[in-house]
């Protein structure tokens, strides 16, 4: 009996010898679930139904808000809630404009704001707690430039708006929902925080706890 040919060094064929990795059932299920979630988000009237349409919605929302202000004069919190929500949606709508500085490194994001703001926003990475920092940008709320830090919670974005409010004492977080988004606001060390996300309210509460504890 003659031995078969021995494979020699260099005698290889990638298509035969290298592994073709196949997706697990678990991955398939994960993707199905996240696409279901995307489908739901897509059906929300304000989100991703066409940028122009959404922009128009926001503009009309802000305008009718301004009109309402003349008539009803709701609280300042109500006004801020609407403004930061509009800013959050704005940042999500324009892919190239989601961040001015895209980095998960707080030591990159924080210095980026230097010279662009008249205050230094506190920047912390919460990756270890499941809320990695994704980047930062400037926005405009209540007639002033504010810092917006973006964190990720799984596939959701959490926007954290920060600006100084030095005259006021600290206040505990108040949360609410508006147009299907979760919002929370608190004040600490002379800084006003507003957090906005389309993630579940419980996810936002956890985020706020982490920041308040820090």
């Amino acid at each position: 009996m003659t031995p078969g040919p021995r494979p020699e060094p260099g005698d290889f064929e990638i298509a035969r010898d290298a592994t073709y990795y196949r997706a697990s059932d678990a991955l398939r299920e994960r993707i199905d679930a996240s696409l279901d979630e995307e489908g739901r988000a897509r059906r929300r009237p304000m989100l991703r139904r066409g940028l122009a349409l959404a922009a128009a919605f926001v503009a009309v929302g802000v305008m009718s808000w301004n009109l309402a202000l003349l008539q009803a004069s709701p609280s300042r919190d109500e006004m801020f809630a609407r403004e930061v929500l509009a800013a959050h949606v704005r940042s999500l709508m324009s892919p190239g404009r989601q961040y001015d500085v895209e980095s998960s490194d707080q030591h990159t994001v924080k210095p980026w704001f230097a010279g662009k703001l008249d205050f230094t926003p506190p920047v912390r990475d919460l990756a270890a707690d499941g809320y990695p920092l994704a980047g930062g940008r400037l926005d405009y709320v209540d007639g002033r430039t504010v810092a917006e830090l973006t964190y990720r919670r799984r596939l959701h974005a959490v926007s954290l708006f920060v600006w100084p409010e030095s005259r006021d004492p600290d206040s505990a977080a108040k949360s609410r929902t508006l147009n299907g988004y979760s919002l929370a606001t608190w004040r600490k060390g002379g800084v006003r925080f507003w957090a906005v996300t389309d993630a579940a309210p419980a996810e936002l509460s956890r985020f706020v706890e982490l920041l308040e504890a820090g």
Partner: protein
Amino acid sequence: MGRHSDFAPSVMPHLDAAFNLARWLTRNDHDAEDVVQEAFVRAYRFFDSLKDSDARPWLLAIVRNTAYTWLRKNRPADVVPLDDTSLIPEDMPTLGHSAPSDSNPEVVLLQSANRKLVNQALEDLPVPFREVLVMRELEDMSYKEIAAVAEIPIGTVMSRLSRGRELLRQALELRLRRAS
């Protein structure tokens, strides 16, 4: 939402291809799954951009971009740009002619050892070579499709394939020599 109902039938059949590419780029299951999941969400959002073109290269381009973003963040050393001018096309002998498969236990053993060696050597190749080899050899994609996915000219695809195979052959020889 019209066309989004077409997403699953046209894109889901390429899940294995997406995972295989992500797995070869990230080199582990866990990160590959995260990359693929994110890529599918992006694909879903940008499904309008698929139009009537072939879904597989379109999806793989998104997977590759997502994987590169991940690599830049987590393994920046893996994505240093490649200077293709250093890829002097060499007249290389055709490599990898297949050995006839054999039920001889010794050969079977050698073939399974071969598999491990080839996997390791391919994983160790720089990303620009690894990705074109995976798309060509494991996905059986055309040069043109690979060029579109990797955003390089067709000539560069060919020189990277050729150079990649040569680097792989050298790496295998070194490993075999060390093992013996």
